[in-house]
């Protein structure tokens, strides 16, 4: 339990609850249901980047150079010193309550540590502890008087000192940033040494004019007021927010400062501070690249605020293009969403490209999360929240809308999505934005509610969507008119409708706080996501392509659910493991995670939240299969060793990982999937686009290929093609062996045996369920070789690889094997070494046949007596041969007829096959059985499991056979037969001796030791030696006897596969 809670607190500090599904939220937050962790709250209060966390806090009194005093709390994070006053002063319009919930605190600052020039300890009365802080704009000194225990004060100072020092390196960034700020230019007149030499870029408005009549907007007076405020209270990076600051914003920002203040109040300024070159770097990195988003952006460039002259120019369009593309590259999960073009276009009127880029990312991440995502869940969620707020605050209107069947969101959705920019005349939309960036998303709700309230009476007369829309459209067009045109009071007459709107929004709806919104979002999130998901599912299933028609709707639905379940659960699990690893390593990611792309972990976990990755890699695929087919579950789950955790294992995880309440296995609570060559083949076959990942469509098509086959011929061809690597219609010797291996693999836990074939019991209910199958498979191999065709001259197959295990298996099982087997391999296998070398260099994942690797000249001219079994004499079977052989055996026939397809169980309505639940139950029962003692011989073991119910006896039986086989091998060894391979052979032998020793130990430890060794040796590079080593348990089996005829060198790859499967 302990580790669970610590993980959770760690995780929650990294995860923004605003965009987590509630189900997860509840886990993360335990008892608190407000969805806000202290860290999140802290960051959002001070608009800090996600990399910041609250390190220390102390009550304190702030004295400003201007003479004001504020009591409040001083916070320290990795790179910021923040203050917020606790007692709100006389700011009008904000309700008084805790600083977090209501409007902004009356005074506060968010000071990057790098902007602090100097901190002095003040000599003062002994019981007081005070600091004087000199900021970058050194015309001001702040006095901070701590109200706490001396030791606490000292600790705080220590931490401050330490962090101050670590921030020194950011100085260059600070200079760059300050130089680009319009406030700097305004206050210094461009003359300061740190200030800008020329007027900083304050948006397209500098060239194409700002919207609205500057005179009417009283832009000049506003500018003067701001200049004064900035002189006294610091600017850009060192600004202190006093009540006047909020008032200045409420009356509307002056054009040239607007962009910078938006940046400052939203906090995007700090992102820019720490990533000074991110924007330009991104543009450079991705220049000339194409994507769907880029296409979509291009479509809309000419369609963004076309009425503004700046966007009829190449310059304006170019800026828009660059900002939108850069963001789409930086956050591909969002990419581009229509409406972003309008928002960014609006921003660009007031700010530079870089500023707009960071403000856009702040918008998408924090202010309107999920609005522009693939599923737009944020938009839909906020619509739901808005509806519920209307219902609460204006019940009569709400009831009327419901009765008239008017859907509120048809009007309100565009308001939120384009932040009113599309709905109101620009000048007014910008006024709303001024407050929005200062106070957050609640402003959208307040303004929306106020619009309805003001138009309430008219709306009560409206009875359909159309009238509803036109009523409000009309209202927006008249925002500049007097709100009280007929009033006698001149002052009242001067009040515009827009002013009225602002007053109603922020006074009447002051009860709508950030907390309200958070709570409401949490409350509705689940149902919104569910409806998005059911829509997505419906649409997706319909569009899965023709292949999908071969599966039932139920099956498709099941595959869909299972696909995304595996995808998201696994992603979450891997993140959790990652976090836990981090925690254990005590490596806190401090300031390193500043890039804006780092937030990706937040966005995962649910389809409704939008796709992260939609592809399953091989491990996901294994997990998927393990849930639908019992043969895909590993026989002996690894306990000590889980790949997800790399080599650095904490001892406390040793042994039974289940002791800890968090399951750190990369497979979670699911049965560990097997890893068999057959599964790899399936994966490659399904991966039609060669992406090393399967989309839902791939999986559906893949399953349709197996389960949707109408007749046995198709099913046989499917299997054949799986092994026809080069698609030439032939399967070589190795392929034949692999096919038999796969047949045993699939059936090793029993399968639906036909009712009247053989007298065996069925499906593992009793024993011997696969016995007839065993016989059939061995018969299959024999027949294959019997009927195989020799390869043509020049058309040669690669020497088969890694099938020792198989050979042995065949021999062990095939009681009818011919005597001649024993002596057939006579021909030198000269090319082995050469091939080996090549093999080593090959990517372990690719298994292409390099038939040309073998120089035909090195082939022995004389064929040995039994061509079929001579590895030097390539042979193959064709599909017709394969078919004939399968059909010659009624068990095999039945397997291909139904058994194979039925071994994969999709929707649980099929009554004849075991359900998914049964599968996992079976798996765990199975896990108790073998204990992992007989690594490598999975096919065989599965068989034996059914015969002998005692794991130990199974193990002993196998070991006995292996020992016997080994002796047999030694007896039969013909000196000189493998002249060229002497070294390798020697190696292999000696290692096998060691292995046999290992085998004598406890069964479990064999596996574990092998696993460790394997890791140490480094799999692919070690060629045959390690191949043999890794395959040891199998190989000893393999080497057993006869196997020699078929025995061929092992390539690292397949052997490793076997090993992994058994670990």
């Amino acid at each position, binding site marked *: 339990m302990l580790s669970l809670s610590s993980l959770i607190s760690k995780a929650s500090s990294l995860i923004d609850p605003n965009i987590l599904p509630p189900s997860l939220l509840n886990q993360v937050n335990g008892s608190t249901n407000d969805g806000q962790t202290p860290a999140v709250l802290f960051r959002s209060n001070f608009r800090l980047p996600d990399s910041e966390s609250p390190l220390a806090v102390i009550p304190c009194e702030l004295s400003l150079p201007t003479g004001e005093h504020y009591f409040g709390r001083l916070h320290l994070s990795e790179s910021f010193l923040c203050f917020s006053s606790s007692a709100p002063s006389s700011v009008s319009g904000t309700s008084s309550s805790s600083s977090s919930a209501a409007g902004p605190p009356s005074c506060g600052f968010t000071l990057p540590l790098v902007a602090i020039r100097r901190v002095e300890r003040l000599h003062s009365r002994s019981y007081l502890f005070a600091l004087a802080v000199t900021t970058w704009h050194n015309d001001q000194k702040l006095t901070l008087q701590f109200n706490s225990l001396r030791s606490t004060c000292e600790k705080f100072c220590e931490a401050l000192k330490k962090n101050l020092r670590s921030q020194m390196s950011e100085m260059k960034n600070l200079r760059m940033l300050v130089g680009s700020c319009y406030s700097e230019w305004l206050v210094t007149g461009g003359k300061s040494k740190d200030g800008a030499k020329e007027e900083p870029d304050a948006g397209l408005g500098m060239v194409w004019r700002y919207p609205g009549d500057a005179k009417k907007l009283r832009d000049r007076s506003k500018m003067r007021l701001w200049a004064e405020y900035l002189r006294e209270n610091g600017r850009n990076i060192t600004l202190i927010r006093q009540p006047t600051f909020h008032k200045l914003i409420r009356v509307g920002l002056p054009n040239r400062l607007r962009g910078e203040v938006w940046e400052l109040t939203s906090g995007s300024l700090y992102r820019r501070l720490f990533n000074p070159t991110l924007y330009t770097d991104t543009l450079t990195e991705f220049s000339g690249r194409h994507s769907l988003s880029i296409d979509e952006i291009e479509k809309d460039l000419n369609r963004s605020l076309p009425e503004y002259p700046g966007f009829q120019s190449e310059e304006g369009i170019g800026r828009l293009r660059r900002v939108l593309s850069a963001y789409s590259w930086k956050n591909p999960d969002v990419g581009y969403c229509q409406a972003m073009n309008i928002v960014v276009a609006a921003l660009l009127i007031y700010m530079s490209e870089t500023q707009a880029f960071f403000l856009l990312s702040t918008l998408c991440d924090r202010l309107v999360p999920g609005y522009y995502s693939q599923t737009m869940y944020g938009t839909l969620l906020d619509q739901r929240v808005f509806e519920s707020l209307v219902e609460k605050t204006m019940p009569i209107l709400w009831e009327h809308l419901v009765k008239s069947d008017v859907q509120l969101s048809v009007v309100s959705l565009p308001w939120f999505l384009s932040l009113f920019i599309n709905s109101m005349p620009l000048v007014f939309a910008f006024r709303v934005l001024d407050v929005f960036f200062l106070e957050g998303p609640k402003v959208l709700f307040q303004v929306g509610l106020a619009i309805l309230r003001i138009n309430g009476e008219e709306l009560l007369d409206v009875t359909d969507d159309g009238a509803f829309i036109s009523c409000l459209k009309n209202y927006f067009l008249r925002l500049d008119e007097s709100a009280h045109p007929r009033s006698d009071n001149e002052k009242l007459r001067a009040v515009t409708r827009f002013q009225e709107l602002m007053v109603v929004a922020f006074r009447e709806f002051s009860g709508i706080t950030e907390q309200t919104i958070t709570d409401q979002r949490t409350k509705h999130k689940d149902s919104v996501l569910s*409806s*998005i998901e059911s829509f997505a599912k419906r649409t997706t299933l319909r569009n899965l392509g023709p292949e999908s028609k071969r599966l039932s709707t139920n099956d498709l639905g099941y595959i869909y659910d299972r696909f995304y379940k595996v995808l998201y659960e696994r992603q979450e699990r891997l993140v959790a493991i990652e976090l836990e690893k981090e925690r254990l390593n005590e490596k806190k990611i401090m300031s390193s995670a500043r890039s804006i792309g780092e937030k990706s972990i937040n966005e995962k976990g649910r389809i409704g939240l939008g796709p992260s990755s939609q592809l399953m890699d091989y491990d996901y695929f294994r997990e998927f299969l393990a849930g639908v087919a019992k043969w895909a579950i590993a026989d002996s789950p690894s306990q000590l060793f889980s790949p997800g955790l790399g080599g650095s294992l904490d001892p406390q995880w040793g042994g039974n990982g289940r002791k800890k309440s968090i399951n750190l296995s990369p497979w979670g609570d699911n049965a560990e999937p097997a890893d068999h060559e057959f599964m790899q083949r399936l994966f490659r076959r399904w991966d039609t686009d060669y992406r090393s990942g399967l989309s839902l469509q791939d999986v559906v098509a893949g399953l349709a290929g197996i389960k949707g086959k109408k007749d046995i011929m198709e099913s046989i061809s499917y299997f054949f093609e799986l092994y026809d690597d080069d698609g030439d219609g032939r399967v070589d010797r190795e392929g034949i062996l692999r096919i038999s291996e796969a047949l045993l693999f699939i059936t090793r836990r029993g399968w639906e045996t036909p009712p009247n074939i053989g007298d065996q019991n069925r499906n593992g209910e009793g024993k011997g369920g696969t016995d007839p199958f065993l016989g059939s498979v061995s018969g299959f191999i024999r027949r294959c070789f019997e009927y195989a065709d020799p390869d043509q001259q020049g058309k040669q197959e690669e020497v088969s690889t890694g099938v020792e295990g198989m050979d042995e298996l065949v021999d062990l099982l095939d009681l009818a094997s011919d005597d001649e087997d024993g002596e057939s391999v006579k021909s030198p296998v000269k090319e082995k070494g050469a091939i080996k070398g090549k093999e080593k260099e090959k990517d372990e994942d690719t298994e292409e046949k390099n038939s040309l690797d073998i120089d035909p000249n090195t082939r022995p001219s004389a064929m040995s007596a039994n061509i079929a079994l001579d590895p030097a004499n390539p042979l193959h079977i064709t599909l017709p041969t394969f078919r004939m052989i399968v059909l010659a055996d009624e068990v095999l026939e039945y397997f291909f007829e139904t058994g194979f397809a039925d071994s994969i169980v999709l929707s649980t309505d099929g009554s004849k096959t075991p359900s998914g639940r049964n599968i996992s139950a079976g798996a765990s029962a199975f896990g108790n059985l073998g204990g992992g003692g007989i690594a490598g011989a999975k096919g065989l073991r599965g068989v034996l499991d059914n015969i002998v119910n005692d794991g130990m006896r199974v193990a002993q039986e196998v070991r006995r056979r292996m020992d016997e086989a080994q002796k047999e091998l030694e007896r039969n060894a013909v000196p000189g037969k493998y002249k060229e391979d002497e070294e390798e052979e020697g190696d292999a032998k000696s290692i096998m001796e060691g292995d046999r020793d290992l085998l004598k130990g406890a069964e479990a430890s064999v596996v574990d030791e092998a696993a460790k060794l394997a890791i140490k040796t480094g799999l692919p590079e070690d060629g045959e030696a390690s191949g043999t080593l890794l395959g040891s348990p199998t190989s000893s089996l393999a080497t057993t006897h006869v196997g020699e005829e078929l025995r061929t060198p092992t390539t690292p790859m397949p052997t490793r596969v076997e090993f992994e499967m058994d670990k």
Partner: protein
Amino acid sequence: MAEGGPKPSSSVKLVLLGEAAVGKSSLVLRFVNDDFQENREPTIGAAFLTQKCNLPSRTIKFEIWDTAGQERFASLAPMYYRNAQSALVVYDLTKASSLAKAKHWVAELQRQASPGIVIALVGNKLDLTNQSTGLESSMGGLSLSAAASDGDEEEEEEGDARQITTAEAKSYADEEGLLFFETSAKTGHNVQEVFTAIANAIPESTLKTRGGPGSGRTGGGAAGDTFGGSGGVNLSAVGETNKDGCAC
């Protein structure tokens, strides 16, 4: 117009669906205002407009929902096609992918929208093909202009930017029982015809049921709603049956 008093008039809800930038808003603008704008802002969420359509026997008042075309807006669509009696599924003749998208929409509507919804498949931007005169007769001689991939840019040239043949779309429309037109919002070609055809195709019975929620409606519309000269047939609320399609 019609002698002997006002014709019966009824409201018909129509929704436009289709890939982004195929010209949905432009078609509506042409129909409603007989106007065309080169650079239209993309539709955010949806736009709402109304326009009357005069048939010999009655007047149809279209309540038009023009939706956003970008893929990710698709989950909002149920909000707009809810209760719609007719739909205009638009694709861009010069963009092959847009017909595929249109087919998705048709399938979605057939399964999720009101049963009996009248759907018209519309290929827009006919003016960009060298068939912009609208001579349907030349249909047989159409070249499968698969090579014209970047047709958009050369719209003024004689080169045929068409990527979807009339035959292909027509046969699909026939299969699915859709009305089918090729239009140009730019020139206005066939635009009025689409809406008239839809108006004609709306069964009388549906016309009356539309009023379900709106039956309390004030003003002139109500008269039209209750007119129902064809007798009190089938008042079943067609539009009410499929609420689960709504994403909100």
